[in-house]
């Protein structure tokens, strides 16, 4: 029993987030770059329309020309003219396990990224800074995968049925009990696919006449689930509790739009860690708001389960709160557990309701047994039930790696978004020309990164997203940081105006003055 927090605030530890804005000239130059790209895009479209250049992309047939144009909107224009030029940085096929290092298939293009061909060689031991492998469970070590091989030989790979017909195995029951124990809740249910967990279960929980308050930057699965449910959706600013409170007050005072009746249910959809920003949800404030206005909370811990918290139990543990405060705890096994699938956990009544009413339970194939066994072994490792402290060591190593990586990047002078404790590190690039240059040069240095541009991010804020893993050693992180240092100087990416000196070790010499 603690004696109480020192100044009685909601947050037991400091909550530091960075969303630094770049200097004005960066925005101006970004627009200049896009302007030049757009002009050349129009030039190329003109040449294609008048037959001066071969058409490689989908166009309408002659008979369709008199109908509504299909490919004239900005998204198609952008894809044809800007995305195609740097397309070689995405969809790169890999040919090994996505651990801390992996192998890439070498790909070249003869006609500026319209077609690719494989040379047959593989690029070996590329450092992996893009895979969601937070705790390093994506491994091929035979000893670690012993139980998984046994289950594979016992059950095979296919289930050939849905949960409600003949697809519930004893493995699923075991896994669900383990997930409930891990999270500290009454019951849990697992599904075969993480995206489908959100999109198929939100329609089962809310319907017409309910209100969904969803964060600005929620993932597509949450947006799809909310739209499919038919409820009214209102959006609040990203992680902004004042905006949310305004919406809640308006909802309770004014009720439904035309009939002015009370809303049947008000549910707040948030994520634990937002994967494009690296920010962590303000859970204590959210829970106090939810209790005050009697709303429900749906927390999507896809990136935060296993990755934050003292023992890896997610944002609920990170903030020192009890899991009873959150009504619906959702998460995926793709990121920290090296498997596939999702879960929903909470009170027993909720989970029993979902077992009968969820679309996923009725129609979707259930999780296959070797994957379930992989999750069971990863979770047992995390909880310490396999007799070792390996799970706790992995969580601690991830925390150390995250803090080291973020601290060094801040010192070097890059603009990094997000909370200091989140393993997702977005590094801002801003200009469209630098997206391609950055990814290609990092691959030349044998480091694989993920770069993101429009439409996944706002058009001026393109970024490179690093996912730190517990399996990265200090040497690997140092290699990456040195490469980033060099590349940051060459491409002029160090826009931060708040950084300390970029080489602090040079100034730490003690000065000894001798009397002469």
């Amino acid at each position, binding site marked *: 029993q603690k004696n109480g927090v020192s100044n009685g605030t909601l947050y037991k530890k400091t909550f530091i987030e960075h969303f630094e804005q770049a200097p004005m000239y960066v925005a101006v130059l970004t627009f200049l770059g896009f302007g030049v790209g757009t002009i050349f895009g129009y030039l190329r479209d003109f040449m294609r329309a008048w037959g001066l250049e071969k058409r490689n992309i989908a166009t309408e047939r002659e008979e369709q020309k008199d109908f509504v144009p299909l490919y004239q909107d900005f998204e198609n224009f952008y894809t044809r003219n800007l995305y195609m030029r740097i397309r070689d940085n995405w969809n790169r096929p890999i040919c090994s396990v996505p651990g801390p290092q992996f192998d890439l298939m070498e790909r070249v293009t003869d006609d500026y990224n319209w077609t690719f061909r494989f040379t047959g060689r593989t690029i070996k031991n590329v450092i992996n800074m893009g895979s969601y492998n937070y705790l390093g469970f994506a491994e091929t070590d035979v000893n670690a995968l012993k139980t998984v091989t046994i289950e594979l030989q016992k059950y095979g790979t296919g289930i050939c049925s849905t949960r409600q017909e003949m697809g519930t195995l004893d493995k699923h029951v075991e896994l669900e009990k383990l997930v409930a124990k891990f999270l500290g809740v009454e019951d849990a249910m697992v599904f075969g696919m993480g995206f489908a967990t959100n999109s198929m279960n939100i329609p089962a929980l809310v319907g017409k006449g309910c209100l969904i308050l969803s964060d600005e930057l929620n993932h597509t699965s949450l947006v799809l689930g909310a739209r499919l449910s038919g409820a009214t959706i209102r959006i609040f600013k990203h992680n902004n509790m004042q905006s949310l409170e305004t919406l809640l007050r308006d909802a309770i005072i004014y009720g439904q739009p035309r009939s002015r009746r009370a809303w049947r249910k008000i549910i707040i959809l948030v994520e634990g860690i937002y994967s494009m920003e690296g920010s962590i949800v303000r859970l204590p404030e959210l829970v106090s708001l939810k209790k005050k206005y009697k709303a429900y909370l749906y927390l999507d811990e896809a990136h935060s389960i296993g990755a934050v918290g003292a023992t890896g139990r997610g944002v609920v543990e990170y903030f020192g709160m009890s899991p009873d405060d959150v009504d619906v705890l959702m998460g995926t096994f793709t990121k920290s557990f090296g498997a596939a699938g999702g879960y929903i956990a909470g009170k027993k009544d909720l989970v029993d309701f979902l077992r009968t009413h969820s679309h996923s339970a009725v129609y979707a194939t259930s999780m296959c047994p070797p994957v379930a066994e992989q999750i069971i072994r990863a979770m047992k490792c995390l909880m310490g039930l396999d007799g070792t402290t390996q799970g706790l060591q992995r969580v601690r190593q991830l925390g150390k790696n995250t803090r080291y990586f973020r601290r060094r990047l801040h010192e070097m002078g890059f603009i990094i978004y997000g909370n200091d404790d989140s393993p997702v590190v977005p590094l801002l690039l801003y200009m469209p*020309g630098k997206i391609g240059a950055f990814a290609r040069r990092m691959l030349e240095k044998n480091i694989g990164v993920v770069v993101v541009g429009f439409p996944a991010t706002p058009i001026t804020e393109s970024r490179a997203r690093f996912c730190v893993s517990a399996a990265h050693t200090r040497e690997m992180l140092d290699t990456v940081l040195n490469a980033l240092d060099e590349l940051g100087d060459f*491409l002029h990416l160090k826009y931060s105006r708040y950084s300390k000196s970029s080489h602090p070790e040079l100034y730490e010499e003690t000065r000894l003055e001798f009397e002469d």
Partner: protein
Amino acid sequence: MDIKSTKYYIYWLFCQFELITCSYLMEPWEKLLFYTFNITMLATLLYTAYVFVPGHICSAFQFFFHLFGNQHENTVSIVK
């Protein structure tokens, strides 16, 4: 070597220009077109500056000289 670091600096500036204006992403014929246009514009600007700027500065100087009223002759008479 000072020449080497200057050459590297100029190459680095050129790389920055290429990245900012997206000419890094263009195919060679597009780059040719873009640089030709830019160099033509720059040459026209410099030529216009060479022809007209001295004339503009002279007339501005004369305007300010008449505005502050022939002080040169006044100071000469006092000293004398």
